[in-house]
Each structure stands twice: as C-alpha cells, then as structure tokens.
C-alpha cells in the first residue's frame, strides 16, 4: 500500500536499546518535522509519520492508526531509521501526541511491559514549538498574523484573511530576496515595516515564516524576539 509521498529522501539510522522510542517521537513532534520513522523489531516492522508537530499516521502490517502506534510503542528493542520530507497520504491519527504517549505508557504498564516509554509530568506540560507563537498571537496589539511552513502549510493564524497575509509576505520575501542578491546579501531573516497607522513584522528561518500586522504601539524588535524561539 502506497501511503506516503517522498519529497526529499534524506535521513539517518540508529538503534534503540535502552533509549526510548517516545524520546524520538517527542523530538519529531517538537521539531515540527515532516518525516517518517521506520521501526524494525526484527520479526515485525512499522512506520510512524509526523507532520506539523503531530504523529499523523502509523502502520504495522495491515494495522493502521492508533492501534499501530501503540503496537510500535510496545516494542522493547528495535532498529529505526528516518526519512525526511515524507508525508502520509492518509491521516489515521488525530489525537495530540502527548495524549498518545500517555496512553501508550498506560497500556504498557497494564501489560507489564518493561518499555522505556515515560509519561509526561502533568504539572509541567511540554511546550510545543508553536505554543509561544500562539501565546504571542494572543496579544491584542497583533491584528493579523500567520505562522507557516515553507511548503505553505498554515500552522497558526490570527485574523479574518490569513491567506492574504500569507500571500503578501510570501511575495514580499521573494522580492526582498532578489534585492538582497543584487546587493550581495544573503537570506532574508527579518523585515520590519512601519506605516502611518500599522506596523508589520516578517520572520523567516528554520523552514518556517511568521508574519504579523500590528498596531503602531508594538515594538517590532521586541516582538521579533518573542516570536523567535525563546
């Protein structure tokens, strides 16, 4: 069954013996990667697909979805390798990855498996990479905003017409890239705009772009620091 599109076949391989697979899952989700992790136990193998900071699909033989995810998480030893830029065609998992790992730990405890899966402490929730974006966008001085992946996927938005904001800043970034090339500069990292009534900020980097239109009260340098990974 062809369930994935390979965009850029890159990746690495490794073996997990005492290292936990849930660490790898956390890493993939926190890194907002579009990847597939192939896990091979020897007598069985499976795949977990990641996109937009979530596990979106898993497959072990004919089993898919959460059942496949929990099956893979129950394996105590295995070999894995990753392929970058691979996207699942179907989305069989919709639950947040934190919840999935919690349930996997619960299932493994019930079955008495000695897995290295560890539960997240409830008192200290894991901060998703876009959590600080969400928090920053909640500022009432930010009127419209988008946070998007390089492939155009909108990861977080604020305002009525995010597509227009997305198109505007994507176009501006392209033009500025030409200006930079002509001047001998390299990649555009950050752009500040100041107008009569509004301001705007556009941040590019790490395969993502964040743009925000604000009131004239906002200090764009401070906002840029807030929107960059703290």
């Amino acid at each position, binding site marked *: 069954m062809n369930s994935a599109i390979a965009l850029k076949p890159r990746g690495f391989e490794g073996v997990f013996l005492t290292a936990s697979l849930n660490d790898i899952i956390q890493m993939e989700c926190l890194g907002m990667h579009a990847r597939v992790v192939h896990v091979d136990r020897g007598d069985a193998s499976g795949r977990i697909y990641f996109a937009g900071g979530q596990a979106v699909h898993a497959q072990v033989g004919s089993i898919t979805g959460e059942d496949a995810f929990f099956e893979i998480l129950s394996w105590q030893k295995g070999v894995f390798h990753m392929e970058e830029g691979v996207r699942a065609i179907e989305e069989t998992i919709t639950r947040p990855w934190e919840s999935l790992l919690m349930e996997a730990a619960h299932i493994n405890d019930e079955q008495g498996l000695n897995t290295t899966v560890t539960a997240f402490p409830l008192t200290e929730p894991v901060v998703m990479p876009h959590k600080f974006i969400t928090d920053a966008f909640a500022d009432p001085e930010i009127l*419209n905003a988008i946070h998007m992946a390089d492939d155009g996927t909108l990861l977080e938005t604020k305002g009525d017409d995010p597509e*227009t*904001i997305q198109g*505007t800043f994507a*176009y*501006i970034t392209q*033009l*500025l890239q*030409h*200006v*930079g090339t*002509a*001047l*001998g*500069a*390299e*990649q*555009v*990292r*950050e*752009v*500040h*705009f*100041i*107008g*009569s*009534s*509004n*301001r*705007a900020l556009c941040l590019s980097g790490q395969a993502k772009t964040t743009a925000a*239109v604000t009131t004239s009260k906002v200090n764009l340098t401070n906002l840029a620091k807030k929107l960059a990974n703290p």
Partner: protein
Amino acid sequence: MISTLVAFKDIPGVFGSFIFWPDGTLAARDMPAIYNDDIFAEIGRRLNGIADAVDPQVPSMSEMLVKFDSYWLLSRRTPHYTLNVLAEETVNYPALKMASNVAMRHLGDKVVSAISTISSQVKLADLSQVFPPAPPTVETRPRRTWRGQTLD
C-alpha cells in the same frame, strides 16, 4: 545629495547608501564601485513593488528595515524619494536611524529644490510649445524722417 549620503559613513558599519525617485529610478548613490548602476533600476522597481504589496496591511509605509544574514537595509520612504542605507548587522541601529532622520531633513530642501527646478524647466518647455514665439511685427506705416533723423 551626495554630501548627505557621504555623511552616513560616519557611522561604523555603514556600507553605502542610495536614493531613489518615486518611480524607482536612481537619484543619487554613495555605494562601492562594484555595484553597477544597472542593478539599482531593479532594486528600485522591487522596493516599489514591496511598498505596493504591503500597503493594504501597512498603509503609507514610511520605513522598512530588512535584516539579511549579514547586512541590514534601512529604507526610509517619502512621497518625493526613498532613502536607503546598507549596513553591516553590527551597526548601531539607533545611531543609523538618527542619521537617517538628519539626512532626510537635509534631503527635504534639496529634493524640493531639485523637483522645482525640474518642474520649472518642464513648464518652460511646455510653454514654448503652447505659445510659439510671436512673428516679427509688420510695420504698416512708413516712419517719418526730417533731415535724415527719424521722428517717430
């Protein structure tokens, strides 16, 4: 205008500066010779395109700061010109901003003067086309003379 641009070099890290007319053509430059004049036509056109694109979100954009990997481009926009300064990322930005304020005050008079000179030349040229020189007057009555001297 050049003397105004040269003053930016007082700030460490400033690489050069240039001014565009509102239509994107180059008005003046104080940039290293490695930059051919031709590239400024494209830069001016693209900066105008950026101003047009961002206008619905940021009406009457008057200032843009672009942070490239190693250089910063400060662009100050007025109805009469756009002042651009290219600097290293280590530049003291508040000092650069103040220098651009001072430069814009100086440029204000010079640009208005330049524009009024251009527009007056255009007006004279236009007037000469609208009102061609008057033909030589034709005398209908012979002049009166007495003992070799003209009386009229």
